[in-house]
């Protein structure tokens, strides 16, 4: 199989699996596990192909760019597809234990559609297919968030839906303006053209605003905490770890490629809202009394770091680009593990109020360890992916002379330590309750594996950065 035919397969395989999962009356568990493992194999094959070639491209059906659909993968696409592919089988393993019957079938179908949309987004070569995959991702994410079925989950999903469509439409309006000015939607043909176009600045503002809303970046994060905190654990993990990263990826592509990192004001604005997000949402996380809300606010805070790293890329180059990628990868793994582990605790306690958590460390030792390991990466302590990412980010901030950013990064790390220790304190302390129900072990192992991988990324920094390549 040639390397370029991997690209359409990465979209078709999970999409076909998702449709099959919704249609088949039974067997959703094995299907979910099988398809997501196959997807991981495809992702590894793509990484292997890219290690030699650097870039892979494919025109669907042999049609060239103005009419056809171009799929392209570079180092960043490969890293993101690999990490999403690595998380998926573990979420599938967890879900096959946590759900049964109809709920498992719906999760399997929707999650595989979600995965297909995510893969498609990371390899889409033109602005319109990016819109379509963004919408597919948003709609399947909303449906996943509504799976719980309770009134709070439904209300939160509706809010999520309205936010995600509004964001997509603002983005699409920007795309329409770009098409009006250039007559093309292809990312390669548009490369570097954005700033000089008539209406280019307006289009950029619309697209960025829409994507920031979809990524739930502070202060547009209002919809995220209720939606993520009211979903069930594997869904929260998928949404917090993967769904919000996709719009940020697209923002990076647009700004660095189409707009060539233009306008110093953009970098300053992104850094300012990133810093505000790190500080404000870390503080919110510290103040939460429900464990899942704490973890959800931590997500918005960590998205702030990604924005800081992105803002520094035009000035600091490779260090900031590497920081963005390492922080993103380690947050995906740590947050997925953390949400699953907290989900285990909440399932055992019957609620997720921090002050009512029992001394679960004796009953759920693996989940407690997962919280501790994920915490190490989120706080940015060595050795972990989070530490490597923050280290590169600090280097980038020092190189560009942005000393206030150094202060924000350090204070954000301290606040992360406070909310992680708050979580750990309630996990390891409190009273014992012997009558609680037992949990399937694989639900614990899935959480622990993810959290341990976040720490493990600390040792894989160099290979990942080599795969990533230079700033596009």
């Amino acid at each position: 199989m040639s390397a370029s035919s991997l690209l359409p397969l990465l979209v078709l395989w999970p999409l076909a699996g998702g449709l099959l999962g919704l249609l088949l009356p039974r067997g959703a568990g094995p299907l979910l596990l099988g398809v997501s493992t196959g997807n991981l194999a495809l992702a590894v094959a793509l990484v292997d192909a890219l290690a030699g070639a650097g870039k892979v491209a494919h025109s669907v059906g042999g049609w060239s760019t103005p009419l056809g659909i171009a799929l392209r993968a570079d180092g960043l696409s490969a890293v993101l597809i690999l990490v999403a592919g690595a998380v998926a089988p573990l979420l599938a393993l967890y879900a096959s234990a946590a759900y049964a019957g109809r709920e498992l079938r719906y999760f399997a179908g929707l999650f595989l559609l979600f995965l297909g949309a995510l893969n498609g987004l990371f390899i889409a070569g033109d602005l319109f297919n990016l819109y379509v995959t963004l919408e597919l991702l948003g709609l399947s994410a909303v449906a996943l968030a509504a799976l719980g079925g309770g009134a709070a989950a439904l209300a939160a999903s509706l809010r999520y839906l309205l936010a995600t469509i509004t964001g997509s439409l603002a983005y699409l309006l920007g795309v329409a303006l770009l098409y009006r000015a250039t007559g093309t939607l292809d990312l390669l043909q548009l490369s570097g053209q954005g700033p000089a176009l008539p209406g280019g600045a307006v289009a950029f503002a619309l697209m960025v605003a829409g994507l920031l809303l979809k990524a739930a970046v502070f202060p547009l994060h209002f919809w995220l905490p209720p939606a993520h905190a009211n979903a069930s654990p594997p869904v929260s993990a998928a949404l917090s770890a993967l769904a919000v990263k996709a719009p940020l990826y697209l923002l990076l592509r647009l700004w660095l490629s189409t707009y060539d990192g233009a306008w110093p004001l953009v970098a300053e604005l992104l850094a300012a809202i990133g810093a505000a997000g790190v500080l404000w949402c870390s503080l919110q996380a510290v103040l939460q009394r429900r464990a899942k809300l704490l973890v959800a606010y931590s997500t918005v805070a960590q998205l702030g770091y990604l924005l800081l790293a992105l803002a520094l890329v035009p000035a600091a180059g490779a260090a900031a680009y590497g920081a963005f990628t390492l922080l993103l990868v380690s947050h995906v793994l740590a947050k997925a593990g953390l949400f699953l582990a907290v989900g285990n605790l909440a399932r055992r306690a019957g609620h997720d109020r921090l002050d009512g958590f029992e001394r679960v460390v004796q009953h759920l030792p693996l989940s407690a360890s997962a919280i501790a390991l994920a915490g190490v990466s989120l706080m940015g302590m060595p050795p972990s992916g989070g530490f490597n990412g923050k280290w590169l980010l600090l280097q980038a901030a020092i190189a560009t002379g942005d000393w206030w950013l150094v202060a924000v990064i350090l204070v954000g790390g301290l606040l992360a330590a406070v909310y992680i220790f708050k979580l750990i304190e309630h996990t390891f302390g409190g009273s014992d309750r012997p009558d609680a129900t037992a949990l399937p072990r694989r639900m614990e192992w899935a959480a622990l594996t993810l959290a341990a991988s976040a720490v493990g990324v600390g040792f894989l920094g160099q290979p990942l950065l080599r795969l990533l390549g230079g700033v596009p």
Partner: protein
Amino acid sequence: MTGQACYAVLGALLFCLSFHALIIAVHPLRRLLAVNVMGSSVFLVFIAGAGPRDPLPQALVITGIVVAVAATALGLNLLLRLAGPAEDDRPSAGQDGS
């Protein structure tokens, strides 16, 4: 050419109006409708930007309409479930298959 510019301006105005409606509306159905109008306004701008012999925007807008229909259906379904028990499959909403 002026006709096209006219449509583009109309689309931009509709976008602002529907965004305003989305912000001030309280009832979720009104918000969903506002988002629908917003979608139509974007499609209008897209079509207005096309040259007379350019089929691409029309193909894109048809795709966009399909996406908008799917999103609206999902939103209406969520709304119905929020509003109260639906006549057919209410008890099945997110329960373990028993």
